[in-house]
Structure formats: structure tokens, C-alpha cells
């Protein structure tokens, strides 16, 4: 059981330990300073409360309720299919495209200058695909290696940083400044806690809570180290605050350790997102809600190959060279956050019907997440492309889900009539 819990916790850490999050942590602490710690703590509390609601023991009474089931009970099958399909597809295709290319640059600039950055990005993608093709269980176990590499590199770097800053303290501006997008963006740090032990009957909260605590300690520790090592204005204004902080802490050795973190973190987030998307598709397929797929078992390898092909084409076509990719990734994260809020809402609704006290917290979390999503869109200079992108992925998916829902009902009726005819 401990092994299963460890694998689940490392999958939950997949997004949290990705280079994208380290960039957001660096920018956030640079812009908000002390207020960043407060924002991060509030975001962690909200994520923890949502987790406790979604994994409430009362929801397990019917023999196990996964997150897809929860959404179906809370908001209906069509909206569930729409939200899960759209959010998972956007996440699994766009975040890896950006992260893999960024890792290619990290490898090229930090480790081997002559090695083509795109070549390395494709190698990493191939590695994750091979892991999944060997077996899904093997790919889950590999997540432990990726996580261990990130955590050990960050631990060594942090220890070195504390020794350096304690021996030569630098003046630090610990005031609190306010930047709404970066503060509300703290909610993104604790996404990805959806994973649960795959071979246990109960949906234990422990792996996800453990992952959340590890993430929280790491973010706060790294944020404090960064602000002690690099001027706040530099951290908030750069696209590589993690690399600048690592170099400031320990020179070239710091860069190498951060390079390991970036590459292992990229493998971790790509692997975790593949698992996340396949897990959701599997749950949809089990309910007959995955468009074009008969009710029953999913063939995960087909989807892994499909994801990899699309990511490969997106990288080859140079999507990462366009600023719009960051806008699309931001939109995907907003949708992920919203889906998390909807899950808390659904859990709260079900628990409320059963008279569980404080279940209204789920409605409050949904409200906070929705307000955060709207304010993040409104305050973004790319608000129009974000809304356009969300409409572009949600509306066709909704139409497809509605079509599939009607077709499924018609098939059910036809099958029932055939069954009755057969018996008469």
C-alpha cells in the first residue's frame, strides 16, 4: 500500500514540480513579496478543503465515486463530458508542447551546446511514450524517478542557498506589493491533485495531501531563497526566475541542478498529464460518455500515441515559437481550475443532500475559483484570445458531447427493444 501511495503522491506532484510552476513562483514572489506567502497559503488551504470534500468518505458509500462520477451526479453527463474532454485535451497537448521545447533549450544551454534543442525535446517525448507503451503501471512507477530527481536537486540547491544566504546576508525588501494576476495565479500551484491509488477500493486523501504539503514547503522555501538571492524587480520581470535564482545561489553548479530540475520536471509533468487525460477518458468510457467509444475498457496506448503525434506536430510546426502558446496554456490552466471548482461544487451538493455539515464549503470554493478565473481573464492583456480559445474548445466539445449523449440514449432504447423482442 505504501508503494501505491508513493506513486500516487508523485503523480499529484507532476504539475507542481514542473518548470512552469517554478517560473510562476519566482514571478509571484518578486511581484507580491510577503503577500505571495499569504496568497500561496490561502491557495493551499482551498485546494486541501476541496480535496477533503471530493474524497469525503460519505461519497464512497455507493462503492467508490471517482471524480468523473462526481461531476456526472453534480452537473450532468453532457457538461461532464464537455469539461473533462476539453480541459484534458488542452492540458495534455499544450503544456507538454511548451515544457518539452523549454527543456530542449535548458539541455542545450546548460549541458550540451552542440545538441539540437528540438532533438532533445523529441527525445524526452519519445521517452515518456515508450514508458507508457511498456505499460501504464511502468509509466506510473517512473514518476517516482522524475520526482526524486526534482526534489533532490531542489533540496541540494536549497541547502546550498541557506548556507550562502546565512553566511552573506543580503538586504531584502520584505514589503507586500499587490499584483492580482500573480496573486490569484497562486491557485494554479496546487492543481493536479486528481490522482488516486489505482488498485485500492478507497479513494484515500493521504497521497494528495502529502503531495500538497511537499509542494507547499518547496514553494515557500524556494520563494524565500529566491527573494534573498535576487532583487524582487528582477524576479518579477524575467521569464526564467528559477534559473536566475539558481545561478545567484550556486553559480554554474546551481544552473546544472536547476537544469536537472527542469528536465526531470518536464518528464514528470508530461507523464502525469498523460495519466490524467487517460484516466479521465477511461472513466468517461466506462460510463459510455466518451464520444465515438463504446462503453467499456479504454485502449490507453492508442491515446498515448495520438497525444504524442499531435504534440510532435505542434512542436515541429513551431507553435512554441509563438507567444500565443503561453496564452493557450493560461486558458487551459483556467479551465483546469474551473473544473476543480465544479468537482468541489458537485461533492458539496451530494454531501449537502446527505446532511454532512460544512458541505457548503464546496459551493464557496466554486465561487472563489470562478471569481478568480473571471478576474484572471479580465486582467490579462490577452483576454480576448483566451476567451476565443475557450469558446473554440468548449463549444464544439459541447456539441459533440450532446450529440453523443443523444446517440447513446437512442442506442440504449434500440438495444432494450431488441432485448425485449428477443425474449418474446
Amino acid at each position, binding site marked *: 500500500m505504501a508503494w501505491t501511495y508513493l506513486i500516487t503522491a508523485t503523480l499529484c506532484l507532476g504539475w507542481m514540480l514542473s518548470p512552469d510552476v517554478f517560473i510562476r513562483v519566482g514571478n509571484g514572489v518578486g511581484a507580491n513579496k510577503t503577500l505571495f506567502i499569504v496568497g500561496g497559503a490561502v491557495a493551499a488551504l482551498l485546494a486541501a478543503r476541496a480535496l477533503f470534500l471530493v474524497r469525503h468518505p460519505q461519497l464512497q458509500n455507493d462503492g467508490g465515486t471517482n471524480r468523473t462520477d462526481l461531476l456526472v451526479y453534480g452537473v450532468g453527463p453532457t457538461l461532464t463530458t464537455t469539461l473533462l474532454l476539453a480541459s484534458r485535451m488542452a492540458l495534455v497537448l499544450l503544456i507538454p508542447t511548451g515544457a518539452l521545447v523549454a527543456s530542449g533549450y535548458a539541455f542545450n544551454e546548460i549541458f550540451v551546446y552542440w545538441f539540437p534543442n528540438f532533438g532533445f525535446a523529441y527525445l524526452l517525448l519519445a521517452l515518456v511514450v515508450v514508458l507508457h507503451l511498456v505499460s501504464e503501471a511502468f509509466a506510473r512507477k517512473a514518476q517516482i524517478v522524475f520526482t526524486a530527481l526534482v526534489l533532490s536537486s531542489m533540496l541540494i540547491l536549497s541547502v546550498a542557498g541557506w548556507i550562502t544566504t546565512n553566511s552573506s546576508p543580503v538586504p531584502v525588501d520584505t514589503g507586500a506589493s499587490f499584483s492580482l494576476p500573480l496573486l490569484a495565479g497562486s491557485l494554479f500551484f496546487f492543481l493536479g491533485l486528481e490522482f488516486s491509488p489505482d488498485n485500492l477500493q478507497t479513494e484515500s486523501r493521504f497521497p494528495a495531501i502529502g503531495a500538497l504539503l511537499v509542494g507547499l514547503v518547496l514553494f515557500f522555501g524556494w520563494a524565500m531563497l529566491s527573494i534573498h538571492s535576487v532583487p524582487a524587480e528582477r524576479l518579477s520581470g524575467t521569464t526564467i526566475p528559477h534559473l536566475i535564482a539558481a545561478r545567484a545561489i550556486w553559480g554554474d553548479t546551481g544552473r546544472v541542478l536547476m537544469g536537472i530540475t527542469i528536465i526531470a520536471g518536464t518528464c514528470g509533468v508530461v507523464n502525469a498529464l498523460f495519466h490524467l487525460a487517460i484516466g479521465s477518458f477511461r472513466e468517461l468510457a466506462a460510463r459510455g460518455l466518451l464520444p465515438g467509444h463504446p462503453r467499456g475498457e479504454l485502449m490507453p496506448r492508442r491515446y498515448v500515441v495520438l497525444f504524442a503525434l499531435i504534440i510532435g506536430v505542434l512542436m515541429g510546426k513551431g507553435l512554441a515559437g509563438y507567444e*500565443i502558446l503561453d496564452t493557450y496554456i493560461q486558458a487551459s490552466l483556467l479551465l483546469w481550475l474551473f473544473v476543480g471548482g465544479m468537482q468541489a461544487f458537485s461533492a458539496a451538493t451530494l454531501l449537502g443532500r446527505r446532511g454532512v455539515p460544512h458541505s457548503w464549503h464546496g459551493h464557496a470554493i466554486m465561487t472563489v475559483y470562478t471569481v478568480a478565473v473571471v478576474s484572471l481573464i479580465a486582467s490579462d492583456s490577452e483576454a480576448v484570445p483566451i476567451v476565443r480559445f475557450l469558446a473554440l474548445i468548449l463549444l464544439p466539445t459541447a456539441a459533440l458531447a450532446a450529440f453523443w449523449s443523444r446517440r447513446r440514449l437512442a442506442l440504449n432504447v434500440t438495444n432494450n427493444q431488441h432485448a425485449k423482442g428477443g425474449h418474446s
Partner: protein
Amino acid sequence: MKKLLSLLVFSFAFTLTPAFAADVGMMNVDELKGMLDSDNLVILDVRTGKDWSSSEFKIPGAIRANPRDFATWGESHPKDKKIVLYCA
């Protein structure tokens, strides 16, 4: 700086039409290194998206210029200076 410069690939022809491409020269790392302090030099970093944001290496003093805005470069950059485009 040497490491930084060793990574640079300079191209004058990056966004120009083939008709002009033959007239535009390439510059190697050492040539540019020798000119970095010149007042007669403008370096345009034409990398965009992750190509720019993920990179640690940015030439001090380089100006970011989006290749898609090439048609308007004539209005925003001096025509009497040597313009070097840095794209990777």
C-alpha cells in the same frame, strides 16, 4: 560571454525575400563580438515565444523585434546603422 556568443546563429536573410537574400551577409560570433561596443550597431533579437522566454542567453542591449512586424521595422529602427538579427 564566450559561451553566450558561441550559441548565436546570426542571419540577415531570416525574414527577407529571396531577391534580397543574396545581398545579405552572415556574421560569425567573433565578428559580432568585436563590434559589440560600436555605436553604429543595432542588434535585434527576433526570437519569439518559448524560443526567447526559455533561453538564458540574451545579448545585452539587444532589442526584441517580432519578425511578423517586419513591414514596420523601417519606422522603428535606424536605417543608417548596421542591423544584426539574432534568431537562435
